[in-house]
C-alpha cells in the first residue's frame, strides 16, 4: 500500500518534470499576479494587513490553477482506467495528495520569496507564527484542492467549476490563514495563536479523513 502510494507520487512527479503542465503555468501565474499588485500599488504605502490578504490571494489562485491538474489530466487523457486497474482507490488518493502537497509547498516557497523581495511593507515580526500559518494553511489548501479536483474531474465543466466549488470549502481555512499572517506582522507570540493553529490543523485532518472515506465513491463510477 505505502509503496503503491509512493509509486503514484513518483509517477506524477516524473510526469510533471517532463511535461511541466502545472509548473510553468504556476510560475507564470505567480510572477504575473505579483507584478500586477506592484503596478497597482506603485508609490503607495500598503499596510501589512492588506499585504497578508493579498499574499493569500496569490496563493489561493495559484493553487486553483495548479492543483486540479493531477486528476483532470488523468481524466482528460483517459489514463484513469490504468490506475483503477492497478491499485486501490485510497493509494491513488494519497499518492495524489502527496504530489499536491509537494507542489503547493514548492509554489509557496517561491511565492513567499518573491513577496519578501518585492513588497517593502511586508515586515514579519514573529517568523514562527508566519511559518506555522503558512505550513498548516498549505496543508489544508492541498488536501481540500485534491478532493475537489477528484470530484470536478468527473464533471464536464471542469475549468469553471473548480474555483466556484473550492471557495466556500476553503473560506474558513483562508480566513484563519490570513489572520495568522496578520498576527505574525503584528508580532504575536506563537502560544497566542494556538486557537488558530488548532483550527488549521483540524481542517486538514478532517478533510483528509473525509476524503479518504469518500474517495472510493468518487473514483469509480
Amino acid at each position: 500500500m505505502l509503496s503503491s502510494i509512493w509509486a503514484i507520487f513518483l509517477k506524477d512527479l516524473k510526469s510533471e518534470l517532463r511535461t511541466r503542465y502545472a509548473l510553468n503555468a504556476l510560475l507564470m501565474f505567480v510572477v504575473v499576479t505579483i507584478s500586477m499588485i506592484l503596478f497597482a500599488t506603485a508609490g503607495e504605502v500598503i499596510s501589512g494587513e492588506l499585504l497578508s490578504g493579498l499574499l493569500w490571494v496569490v496563493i489561493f489562485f495559484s493553487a486553483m490553477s495548479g492543483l486540479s491538474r493531477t486528476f483532470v489530466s488523468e481524466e482528460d487523457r483517459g489514463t484513469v482506467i490504468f490506475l483503477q486497474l492497478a491499485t486501490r482507490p485510497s493509494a491513488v488518493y494519497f499518492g495524489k495528495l502527496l504530489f499536491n502537497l509537494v507542489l503547493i509547498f514548492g509554489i509557496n516557497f517561491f511565492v513567499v520569496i518573491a513577496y519578501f523581495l518585492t513588497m517593502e511593507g511586508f515586515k514579519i515580526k514573529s517568523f514562527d507564527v508566519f511559518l506555522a500559518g503558512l505550513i498548516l494553511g498549505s496543508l489544508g489548501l492541498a488536501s481540500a484542492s485534491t478532493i475537489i479536483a477528484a470530484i470536478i474531474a468527473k464533471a464536464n465543466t471542469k475549468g469553471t467549476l473548480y474555483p466556484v466549488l473550492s471557495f466556500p470549502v476553503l473560506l474558513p481555512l483562508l480566513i484563519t490563514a490570513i489572520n495568522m499572517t496578520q498576527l505574525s506582522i503584528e508580532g504575536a507570540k506563537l502560544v497566542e495563536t494556538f486557537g488558530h493553529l488548532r483550527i488549521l490543523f483540524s481542517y486538514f485532518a478532517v478533510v483528509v479523513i473525509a476524503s479518504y472515506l469518500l474517495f472510493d465513491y468518487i473514483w469509480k463510477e
Partner: protein
Amino acid sequence: MEFKLICKDIRKSFGRLLVFESINFELTNNSSLAVAGKNGSGKSTLLKIIAGLLSPSSGEVIYQINGKKIDKLDWFKFVGFVAPYLQLYDEFTGYENLEILAKIRGVKDYKRKIEDILKRVNLYARRNDLVRGYSSGMKQRLKYACALLHDPILLILDEPTSNLDPEGVEMVWAIAEEQKKRGILIIATNEPEELKICEEVINLDELKLKAKGQIVK
C-alpha cells in the same frame, strides 16, 4: 486454487437507457466466455462491470477463491484488462509504463518480468521510445504487456485484435490459448473467429447464455 467469477442478475442502465438486464453466469478456472452483440449493445459496459470499473445498477458480481468472497477493493489483483479506451502514459516510454505499473502493483522482481513480456509482445526493440511515438498497433501490444504483467487469473479483452497486424493477431491467439489453460478468459467481440475460441457465448442481442454446442445445433 479454485477461482470463480459469478454474475448474478446484472442489470445496467444509464439514466433512462436500459443497456441490459438479467445477465447470469458462472465461470471457473479453465473456462472462457465471449460477449457478442451489435455496436452499442453493451459489451464494453458488461466488461467494465465484470472488472469492477463500473457498478451495475442492480445485481452483483462476485469473485471467489476456494469459496471465499474477495473484497471488491482487491479485485485489481486478479484482473488483466485490454480495451481501446484504456490509455497509457504517452509522456513515458513503453518500458517506463510497465515499470510504473509494476511499482504501483508491487510486482516483485519486475525487471526480468518486464523484459520477458516486452519480448513476448515484440516491443523490446522499441522499449525506450516514448509511447507518444508508438503506432496504434504498438500501443495495443503494450496494453497486452500491461495486462499480463501480474499473471492475472481473469483476463478481459475488449476488441482484442483491434489495430493489430496478422502477427499481432497470432500473438493474441497464443495469449488467449494460454489464458484458457491458466484461468478465465473473457472477450468482447463481433469477429466470428474470436467467438469460436470461447466455450460459452453471451449474445447481448438475444440475452441468452448458451453453451456453444447448442448454438451449433
